[in-house]
């Protein structure tokens, strides 16, 4: 299989800071926060009360006779935006769809259990709508796409792994183009309460929601959960599509941590080696050397443990280049939106490459002790950018993914 790059010709962000490319871009580079008091508070009112919620499409309670899961609605909006943005004409029979989603349609599962418990009947469409593959089917149907179709579920890295699958399909010639992205509707009681019990969510910033997600800051105290979707149109690299492309996806890799124990908040001790290996393998897949990396889009989720861990990973991977390569995290404005984040990182990387500018990491008022990275803090920073490496840490540190994006030279 060749290591050819794929063109990114369309982008559809549906996020707490804006829906559609223009709104997202303006907010991202202005450092605008999408975090606010949530409509649902985790853990009996004692836990995290901040979330990244999406206004477009608006939230609507499930109608149980014709239920439309939130993750599917978000995905449809994002995929259509990406498709329109790409302006791709012609044959749709070799256009594929890959959707990444961590929790799938948990909202509908929860509502159905409640309905059954209350003695109600569930709708005949519930099973079809509840399964994680529903979003992919709805997208293929709405856009009339006849190529390969699949769903990837690998927790917070679902969107990253979906991009990896789509890149493989294009390299293997299985599809000429792929509508690929992530969708997540994790603002559900079962998820929020579990994450609170696992000590994963921020609980100390409920009165100052926009300050709750604090990547690499000493006063961070957990993730801020969120919802959203983000899709790209990925295409085979052909000369006449190069002037439409915003950037290229050049390489992908993921790695498992092998055998390890469940995450232990009292004594976490995962090795940095698998994460470093994932980052190096993505660069190798892209045919790039470390000296060609101009910026890193960090996982930076405001997690108490994983931000320190990632600082060591990136320092180890960059080595002597750590002082030269700027690092940023979009989660300071967008929270942790599961499968969606890696695709929002992809969109941020495309926009950064196009503008020659990196978005800010907000809320890092006091970086970790002995912080060895050049973090883009407070405001956007102009930079000469040809390649950006993006990092994703999977749930509990069990697995890691990395993607390399590059500028497209016009023909």
């Amino acid at each position, binding site marked *: 299989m060749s290591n050819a790059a794929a063109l990114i010709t369309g982008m559809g962000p549906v996020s707490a800071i804006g829906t559609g490319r223009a709104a997202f871009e303006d907010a991202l580079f202005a450092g605008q926060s999408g975090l606010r008091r949530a409509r649902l508070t985790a853990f009996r009112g004692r836990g995290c009360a901040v979330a990244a919620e999406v206004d477009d499409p608006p939230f609507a309670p499930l109608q149980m006779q014709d239920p439309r899961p939130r993750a599917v609605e978000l995905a449809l909006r994002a995929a259509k935006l990406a498709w329109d943005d790409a302006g791709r004409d012609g044959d749709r029979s070799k256009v594929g769809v890959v959707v990444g989603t961590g929790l799938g349609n948990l909202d509908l599962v929860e509502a159905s259990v409640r309905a059954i418990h209350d003695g109600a009947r569930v709708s005949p469409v519930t099973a079809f709508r509840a399964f994680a593959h529903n979003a992919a089917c709805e997208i293929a149907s709405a856009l009339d796409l006849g190529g390969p179709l699949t769903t990837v579920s690998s927790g917070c890295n679902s969107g990253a792994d979906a991009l990896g699958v789509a890149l493989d399909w294009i390299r293997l010639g299985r599809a000429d183009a792929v509508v690929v992205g992530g969708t997540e509707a994790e603002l559900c009681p079962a998820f929020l309460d579990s994450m609170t019990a696992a000590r994963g969510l921020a609980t100390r910033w409920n009165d100052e929601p926009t300050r709750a997600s604090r990547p690499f800051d000493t006063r961070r105290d957990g993730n801020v959960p969120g919802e959203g979707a983000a899709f790209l149109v990925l295409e085979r690299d052909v000369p006449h599509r190069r002037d439409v492309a915003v950037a290229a996806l050049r390489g992908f890799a993921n790695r498992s941590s092998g055998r390890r*124990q469940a995450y232990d908040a009292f004594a976490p001790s995962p090795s940095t080696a698998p994460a470093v290996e994932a980052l190096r393998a993505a660069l190798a897949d892209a045919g790039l050397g470390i000296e060609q990396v101009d910026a890193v889009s960090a996982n930076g989720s405001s997690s108490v443990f994983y931000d320190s861990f990632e600082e060591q990973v990136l320092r180890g991977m960059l080595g002597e280049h750590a002082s030269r390569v700027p690092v940023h995290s979009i989660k300071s404005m967008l929270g942790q939106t599961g499968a969606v984040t890696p695709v929002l990182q992809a969109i941020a990387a495309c926009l950064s490459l196009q503008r020659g500018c990196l978005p800010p990491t907000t809320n890092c008022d006091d970086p970790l002790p002995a912080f060895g990275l050049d973090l883009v803090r407070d405001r956007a920073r102009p930079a000469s950018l040809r390649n950006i490496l993006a990092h994703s840490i999977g749930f509990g540190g069990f697995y890691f993914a990395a993607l390399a994006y590059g500028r497209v030279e016009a023909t």
Partner: protein
Amino acid sequence: MTEIVAAILAGLDELQRGGAIPSDFAVSQAGEDTLLASIGLDSLSRMTLLGQLEDRFDTLVPESHVAGVRTIGDLARVTLDSCRRSA
């Protein structure tokens, strides 16, 4: 503080009866200085114990306060600190 330590010991006793702690550990001999590592709790049991304390004392211990916990006394202190903050 004494009440919290008593609640921790009661929680350990319950975990031991459920098989989550090796039977050779004597809960009745444990006190504030007992190292959590010496009890043989796995990570899920530690989280369960902390969750029981949070429910009992109606508080939430942030993760940033959990990392330095080594002994039963440390665990009682971070729980007490959280109670004071949420009061």
